[in-house]
């Protein structure tokens, strides 16, 4: 089983190398190869997750190692969906780097399968974690697009107008996608909490931070679609949103205590 993990990790590394080659050699074929490798990486990671699922008899989404693997998977999946719009070597490289770092970080946590405490034995939990992480995957891709946009907007940048334009569109599309799934994630989490503890919201730090993240992206959507904010302003909001995601994910675990401290 761990071989499947190692193969996916190796494929992600290959994708990273190809992406760096792509930075130097801008030919279309390099990008295609990199995309192909990424597809293989997702496939291998999917196999690993499914194997782990079967071995454990439950969804493998319940500790730091498992959730980081899932995070890497969702980033890749979202990336594959927006690839057509975003064939930029720099974006590919940044995303590959993010995926590799996520998996590398995962290996610092134990990969052993643990039994679950009663409160975690729920299908709602599976849906909750999966949808939250799909949301995070969307926000991660948006973040990369936003950073690239900010860089492309510097005065001496040679970035073409179309490049910035597609970054802009991807940035907003992935936020919309992420927002929808974060919303589903928060709500299924609430339903789960209600079925386990009789209360759908208890202001624990992770819940509260997910609300903060949600509010930031709600702000992004309103500013962009109603007030017509474009470009750098909305890019910075996407970056701020992702910082909030990271804090919700890691910061709360390490700095604050609460119901979710096992994940």
């Amino acid at each position, binding site marked *: 089983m761990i071989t499947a993990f190692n193969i996916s990790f190796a494929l992600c590394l290959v994708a990273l190398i190809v992406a760096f080659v792509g930075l130097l050699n801008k030919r279309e074929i390099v990008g295609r190869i990199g995309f192909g490798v990424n597809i293989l990486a997702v496939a291998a990671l999917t196999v690993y997750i499914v194997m782990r699922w079967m071995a454990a*008899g439950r969804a493998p989404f319940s500790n730091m190692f498992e959730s980081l693997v899932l995070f890497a998977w969702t980033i890749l999946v979202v990336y594959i969906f927006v690839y057509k719009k975003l064939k930029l070597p720099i974006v590919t490289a940044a995303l590959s780097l993010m995926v590799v770092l996520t998996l590398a970080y995962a290996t610092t946590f134990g990969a*052993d399968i643990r039994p679950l405490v*009663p409160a975690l034995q729920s299908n709602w939990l599976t849906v909750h974690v999966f949808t939250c992480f799909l949301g995070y995957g969307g926000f991660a891709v948006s973040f990369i697009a936003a950073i690239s946009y900010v860089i492309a907007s510097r005065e001496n940048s040679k970035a073409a107008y179309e490049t910035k334009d597609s970054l*802009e569109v991807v940035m907003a599309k992935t936020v919309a996608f992420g927002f929808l799934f974060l919303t589903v994630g928060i709500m299924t989490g609430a*339903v789960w909490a209600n079925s386990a503890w009789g209360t759908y919201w208890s202001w624990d730090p992770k819940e509260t931070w997910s609300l*903060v993240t949600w509010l930031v992206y709600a*702000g992004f959507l309103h500013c962009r*679609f*109603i007030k017509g904010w474009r470009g750098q302003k909305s890019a910075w909001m996407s970056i701020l949103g992702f910082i909030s995601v990271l804090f919700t994910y890691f910061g709360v675990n390490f700095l604050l205590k609460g119901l979710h401290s096992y994940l």
Partner: protein
Amino acid sequence: MSGLINFLTSLKLTLTVLLVIAVACIAGTVLPQGADVLKYLEANPGAQSQMDLLGFLGLTNIFYCWWFIFLLCFLSLSLSICTFRRFRGALRRKSGLRWKDLGSLFSHISLLLILAGCVARSIWGLNGYLPLREGETKTKFQVETGFAELPFEIHLEDFEIEFYGSDEDEHVQDSLSEKVVVLNHDGQVVAEMSSELDAGQAVGPVQLKVLKRIPDFVVDTATGGVVSRSEEMHNPALQLEIVEGGTTNTQWLFALYPGFNMHNKEGADRPHLDFRYEVYVHSGSEPGVKDYKSTLVVKEDGVEVKKKTIEVNRPLSYKGYTFYQSGFNPDDHKWTSLQVVKDPGVPLVYAGFLMMIIGLAMVFYVDPNLSVDSHGGGKNSIE
């Protein structure tokens, strides 16, 4: 007047309110809240006056203080007006209603439904605690202010605890880790601490400390003292010192028998906390509670009307009351402890959830305008 309303419902003010709510939320996770204040004061005795000031400003109870509630009310009001106006505008538009209008209407109304559900809970909701012994029938449960009456009888037919260790869990574990879990009497985890010797921790006003840790606990029949039979983790046990309000108790915790806590003192002096010593070992003798179940029977006038075996995550609901498996009595496996919740707001909240998800999906995917005019002043721009 309409100028004032326009200002109060302007997107700018609303977004500012959302921002303030977000900042308040952050403060609520950073500043000590509610019961944590005591703990904080214990660690920093000099901070009394700061805490008093924070308390006065509502900052030690942010999510329930008047100005936070006020912000939510304000948001609801401006949201209602704003949504109503927009929808009226869309209805009057010559080009007719679009899917997107409906999606936007749904995603905003849903928020109002959810908030209304929370209000209903705080006005008509009840949250209490019900300990039951096997064979017992009760019609009341404990709430903060005393007892609440149930409109029916609840009877505990059977209570069971299962532990990890049966062969279906063979794949588990290839390493060893241990910790002490602190629970309140509702079975909720309030803290975790290391099982290292001398590891100490304060939980509220209670001071905890690990005195002894024994891998293979036996009582030496000759001396009556505690010894370890071997170095293997065959019967891991841990002695905890609990200091509360000047009295000191010690308690033995057994990883394999989470319910079997040997109290050195019984009765009224028992601390208001439960403890679990959790050890995960490779050997396949997986300790720790896997599940606990109560078979409950609902009766009306002595006649059985409903029966269900509940466990964590699988409550029983009847006539608006929901019974949750919340814990067990560590001293006596014939007892179960149930949490009883009456929350008339839940249907509203769930309807809101569903509506928001449908609404957002409609806005983003049924009639999306995300790729249109992506540069400069959108067609939706109202500013």
